């Protein structure tokens, strides 16, 4: 290492711990003093602590960025678990991969904190909201900065908890409270997989004489695992990822998670937490590469999720539900990328998606805010006249996610599709292109129905519709800027760039040259861009002419469309196959086993003793003469028995 770089690392390292710690201090402030010092102080502390984390993260990022390849900054805080040979430390580590993630989390997080000060301005539980939001930041930063699996699990569970708290933030509404519970329970299934995967790894590594769960150790030893072990560990961890990152079959919680305040949907359920699964797989790329079968499954699940969620998104009428299914779909793209081994492309998409999806969620929040909590796009339209900034920034988001050349989504999506093609996964590539067309379609539909045409709600709402305050529009503008320029860090070589982003990540996740001619790559781009334009044009033509075009589709596709609106009835299916049997089984266990057998045994013993006592107490009449008679009879019996036995 260059002495200069070493010196800088030594300077930055001790500050890494403050990146997650500062928001945690904010939490304590909000809970202890938030209600006393008022909204201004809470907002200031919340944004300030995240801004400070962002500054520290930038410092770490610049150190890695300017340093030699493969540089990592480690801040060992203390030894957390020491048991036998096993040791888990609380130590934070920033390498290329973590530095990108920590920048996304703190950067987008900061913008959403600023936005929230405006969005939640009139909420009575202001301090509680920012306590949860800051707690989420702390947990997410632990997750991202952890250098071993157990510490990552702390963050992993922490973000799950905050997700639950924030989805059910308006807990007085039973529907919102139960959406929070659903998210928590579904994530719990995934977490069980995560834990079992971690145990499998620990067990195997102990046998190999390396009893540690540090990511470096796992990745270094993964190649020498028995294939079955690598597959089992990879699949179990992937179960964890499907829970957190909303993939088939555990994606069902994410659409319901929209019950939370909109900034929460933007921060947790679009930009950061849901990418934790992608990050974890990229972090453990060595393990997953050692299990090719698991990689195939991941790619397949990702493609299936991307397609399925996109089709559902076409038929949704709630502005946030469309964005939620779009998020599920985009996460599917990221897993598709992981599955074909393009870890860098997946993280690239994590980043661009964080920009444009946070932008669109915040834009949706701005619209909802301006239209008095209206969320149904059938009762919107023409909002562009009342909210010019929201409209302009939202349009940038739509163009970015649709993959219009020159915007962020184009670069990352095309890198994923090119990687799928180059790896010979033609089926996945076709799914991706179809998904891209559908994404363009439902996003354009959403845009047209919300912002274009005539307003379809009531006059009162329209008269009071207004642009949001600057605390809300400013983050929108910044995110719109990032959604435009965010892609230029990874211009592919086919377009005359150097693929700088992938090269930067290469020391962390490995780099795989595409190995296809740049003409082929250009052709692939042309196909996906063509698909996107097709989708956009179709949606534009249909919905700008008739905002009620959905009714026509529903008529002509009578067998399919209602099913799309009900999201393929997956919730009903789970309810029928899992929840109801579980409830019925529990009820049976409760009534037939717990009440009848266990309680029956305990109560039966008690009442048998009581009954016997009730009979025996008649014996004690209190009359001494009866006692005397008993004694006499007893003596007579004893004497008689002894006489018979010849004892006397």
């Amino acid at each position: 290492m260059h002495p200069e770089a070493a010196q800088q690392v030594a300077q930055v390292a001790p500050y890494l711990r403050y990146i997650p710690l500062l928001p945690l201090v904010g939490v304590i402030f909000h809970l202890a003093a938030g209600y006393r010092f008022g909204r201004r102080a809470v907002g200031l502390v919340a944004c300030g602590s995240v801004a400070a984390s962002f500054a520290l993260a930038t410092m770490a990022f610049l150190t890695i960025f300017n340093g030699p390849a493969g540089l990592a900054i480690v801040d060992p805080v203390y030894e957390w678990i020491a048991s036998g040979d096993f040791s888990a430390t609380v130590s934070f580590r920033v390498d290329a991969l973590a530095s990108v993630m920590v920048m996304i989390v703190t950067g987008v997080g900061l913008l959403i904190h600023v936005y929230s000060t405006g969005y939640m301005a009139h909420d009575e539980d202001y301090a509680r909201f920012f306590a949860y939001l800051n707690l989420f930041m702390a947990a997410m930063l632990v997750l991202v900065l952890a250098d071993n699996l157990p510490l990552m699990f702390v963050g992993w569970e922490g973000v799950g908890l905050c997700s639950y708290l924030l989805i059910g933030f308006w807990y007085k509404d039973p529907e919102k409270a139960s959406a929070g519970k659903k998210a928590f329970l579904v994530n719990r299934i995934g977490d069980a997989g995560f834990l079992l995967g971690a145990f499998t790894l620990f067990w195997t590594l102990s046998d190999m004489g390396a009893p540690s769960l540090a990511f470096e150790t796992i990745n270094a030893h993964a190649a020498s695992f028995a294939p079955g072990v690598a597959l089992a560990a990879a699949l179990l961890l992937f179960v964890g990822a499907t829970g957190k990152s909303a993939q088939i079959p555990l994606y069902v919680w994410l659409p319901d998670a929209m019950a939370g305040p909109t900034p929460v949907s933007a921060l947790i359920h679009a930009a950061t937490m849901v990418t934790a699964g992608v990050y974890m797989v990229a972090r453990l790329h060595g393990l997953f590469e050692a299990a090719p079968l698991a990689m195939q499954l991941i790619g397949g699940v990702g493609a299936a999720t991307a397609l399925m969620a996109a089709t559902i998104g076409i038929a949704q009428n709630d502005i946030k539900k469309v964005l939620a299914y779009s998020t599920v779909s985009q996460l599917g793209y990221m897993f598709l990328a992981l599955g074909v081994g393009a870890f860098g492309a997946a993280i690239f998409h994590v980043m661009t998606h964080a920009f444009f999806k946070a932008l669109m969620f915040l834009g949706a929040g701005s619209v909802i805010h301006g239209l008095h909590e209206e969320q149904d796009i059938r009762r919107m339209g023409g909002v562009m006249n009342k909210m010019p900034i929201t409209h302009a920034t939202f349009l940038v988001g739509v163009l970015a996610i649709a993959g219009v050349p020159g915007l962020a989504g184009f670069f990352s999506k095309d890198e994923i599709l090119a990687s799928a093609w180059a790896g010979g996964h033609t089926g996945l590539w076709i799914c991706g292109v179809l998904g891209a067309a559908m994404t363009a379609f439902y996003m354009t539909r959403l845009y047209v129905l919300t912002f274009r045409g005539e307003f379809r709600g009531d006059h009162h709402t329209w008269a009071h519709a207004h642009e949001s305050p600057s605390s809300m529009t400013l983050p929108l503008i910044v995110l719109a800027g990032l959604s435009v320029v965010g892609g230029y860090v990874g211009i592919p070589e086919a377009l005359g760039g150097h693929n700088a982003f992938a090269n930067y990540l290469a020391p962390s996740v490995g780099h795989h040259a595409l190995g296809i001619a740049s003409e082929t790559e250009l052709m692939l781009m042309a196909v996906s861009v063509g698909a996107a334009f097709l989708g956009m044009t179709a949606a534009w033509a249909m919905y700008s002419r008739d905002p009620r075009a959905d009714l026509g589709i529903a008529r002509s596709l009578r067998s399919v469309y209602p099913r799309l609106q009900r999201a393929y009835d997956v919730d009903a299916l789970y309810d029928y196959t899992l929840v109801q049997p579980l409830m019925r089984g529990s009820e049976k266990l409760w009534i037939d086993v717990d009440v009848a057998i266990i309680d029956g045994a305990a109560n039966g013993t008690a009442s048998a003793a009581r009954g016997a006592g009730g009979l025996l107490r008649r014996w004690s009449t209190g009359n001494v003469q009866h006692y005397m008679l008993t004694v006499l009879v007893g003596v007579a019996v004893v004497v008689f028995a002894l006489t018979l036995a010849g004892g006397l």
Partner: protein
Amino acid sequence: MTIGLVHWLVLSALLMAIGAVGVVVRRNVLIIFMSVELMLNAANLAFVAGAHSLGTMNGQSIVFFVMTVAAAEAAVGLAVILALFRNRQTVAADEIALLKW
């Protein structure tokens, strides 16, 4: 016919039985008390008869202990009966069945 051990023992048994029946069937606590004395004396008679027939002093000496205990018991018992009568104005055994369920 000479009077032997068996005769004495039969007499003792009869006395014991009379005493036992008295304890069980009579209601007056004083009579019960007297019946108890009768039973003690039945035992004494059996001891003396045994000692005589075996030609040892063991039985005779035990009788002294029994008589001592009986005297002490009479003192305590009569005191209890007296206290009982003062409190409840009765000496009927079935009317002072306090130790019951």
